[in-house]
């Protein structure tokens, strides 16, 4: 695991970058891992009123610690509401009640399509079989925007062609909108250890808008599997603040469950 400025690990960088992106957002769909920590950090520092929805049907959780999984009973005790999965996937997700969905994946392409099904081989006999969609297909289709977190920035994860398209981004075929298709706008932001990519509507692809400290634009371009466009106003990521790191390390994940 590389450590950049102030000894910040990749995982910490991802969490802090994601937390900052939650400024101005209201209802967030949380997945396991980095998103759980990012939301907790954002609630502490930037958006105390974030309304959180977990894939387990918990709406408005108030856990006394960071949960260890999305079905952690801590999320239920003291929550504002728990709904069944038909209500969660039907009324909250497909019903377009989610502002931001967090997704992870093994591969992402320049259009924001995701692969979490397999690496190598084919569907009938994959070289490496991954877990598949879970709820990713629906979150991608209907969250107003999607943040993707990729924990390894390499040409094998940011690829020119997915080994399998598990989760199509609504932007892909210009199919967003209408009453039978996806209602969301797809991936707005991709966060990796090396930088931040954002959706450029005019180009119809993800472009580099910020690089992490200790990395160069050339390095990011070289380790991306497609010819990566770079924003004219590209910036270097602001350093994590002392407060961000302190809360993350000392309060939210002192046992480094997620920051491993």
């Amino acid at each position, binding site marked *: 695991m590389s450590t950049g400025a102030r000894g910040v690990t990749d995982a910490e960088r991802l969490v802090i970058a994601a937390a900052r992106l939650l400024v101005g957002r209201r209802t967030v769909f949380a997945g396991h891992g980095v998103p759980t920590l990012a939301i907790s950090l954002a609630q502490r520092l930037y958006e105390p009123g974030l*309304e959180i929805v977990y894939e387990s049907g918990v*709406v408005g959780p108030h856990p006394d610690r960071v949960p260890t999984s999305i079905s952690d009973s801590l999320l239920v005790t003291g929550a504002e*509401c728990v709904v069944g999965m038909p209500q969660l996937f039907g*009324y909250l997700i497909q019903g377009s009640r989610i502002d931001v969905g967090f997704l992870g994946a093994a591969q992402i392409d320049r259009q924001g399509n995701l692969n979490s099904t397999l690496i190598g081989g084919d569907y009938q006999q994959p070289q490496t079989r991954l877990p598949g969609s879970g709820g990713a297909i629906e979150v991608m289709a209907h969250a107003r925007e999607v943040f993707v977190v990729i924990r390894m920035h390499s040409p094998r994860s940011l690829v020119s062609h997915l080994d399998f398209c598990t989760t199509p981004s609504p932007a892909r075929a210009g199919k967003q909108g209408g009453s039978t298709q996806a209602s969301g706008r797809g991936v707005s932001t991709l966060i990796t250890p090396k930088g931040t990519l954002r959706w450029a509507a005019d180009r119809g692809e993800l472009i580099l808008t910020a690089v992490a400290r200790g990395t160069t634009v050339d390095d990011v371009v070289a380790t991306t599997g497609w010819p990566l466009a770079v924003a004219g106003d590209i910036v270097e990521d602001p350093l994590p603040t002392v407060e961000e790191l302190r809360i993350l390390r000392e309060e939210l994940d002192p046992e480094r469950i997620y920051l491993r």
Partner: protein
Amino acid sequence: MIGGPARAGRAVDSRRPRDKVSTLPDAIARYVRPGSRVALEGFGHLVPMAAAHEIIRQRIADLTICRMSCDMMIDQLLAAGCLRGLITSFLGNSSGGSLHELRRALEGRSTVKVELQEFSHGGMIARYIAGAAGLPFYPIRSYDDGDLRQVNPLIASVTDPFSGDEICVVPALRPDVSVVHAQRADRAGNVQAWGILGVQQEVAFAGKAVIVTVEEIVDDAVIRADPNRTIIPAQIVSAVVPCPGGAYPCSVQGFYDRDDAFFRRWSENARDEQAVPKWLRDNVYELPDHAAYLQRIGAALDRLRVVPAPSGSVDYGSRQPVSAAGPGLVVS
């Protein structure tokens, strides 16, 4: 291109106000506009009757009312000139008899016209579920042979791709405003209800705006002690209105019973077309608000009080608190 990443360290709170408590006049005035499509739901229980009266008091016109099972509220809205369209599946006064004001309109015996869109209960439920779930339509295994389909072009069909057979479908219903009554909510609008739930959850999620009137506003801690009891989460609620007695003459489990005699009297009295405007004058227009109405009918409500029947408590316990498990903190 979307703007750059958010700047670090800037504490912004851009969400809607978390406290959504409102008065009934304010909530109705803000969300119910002339021409709105308004769902007023509650299946003989948790019926937003006070909200309907406030719509009448504010003389909001040209409304299309969505209500599965009608009752005297429909006669009242019609006589008050509020109702232009009606989307429904039962046109009686609940089990109390006829709605004579509505019948006069539908039978061509008055100057008022009602644009009627009629389904079965199953069809209305299907429309609300589709509206809540963002689906364009909902399939339903009935309707195929009846005459309702002949007079309602919104009952369509699709081919089941798996069997090749036809199945009926109805389109999503998305009210501009959905109004329901419930036992209680917190100030943010997390709504808890029990007893007969009808389509309260579905119609709320189907609505573009949601007004909930409640018997009582309770502390957050009461709601959060029993999160599975929350049928409507605060996220989707526009206004929450404390409104004790707000369902009378319908019942609210644990609070008051239904006034069956009032239902029967309505169906008797409304045979006289003069009786309905008079009732509106005495019970709505000349009273400032719902509290005054309740005061007026005080004795009737007293007779409907209920005897307690506690649900008992269940345990939402989770693992050992932080103090026992090691370092940590309250996250939110």
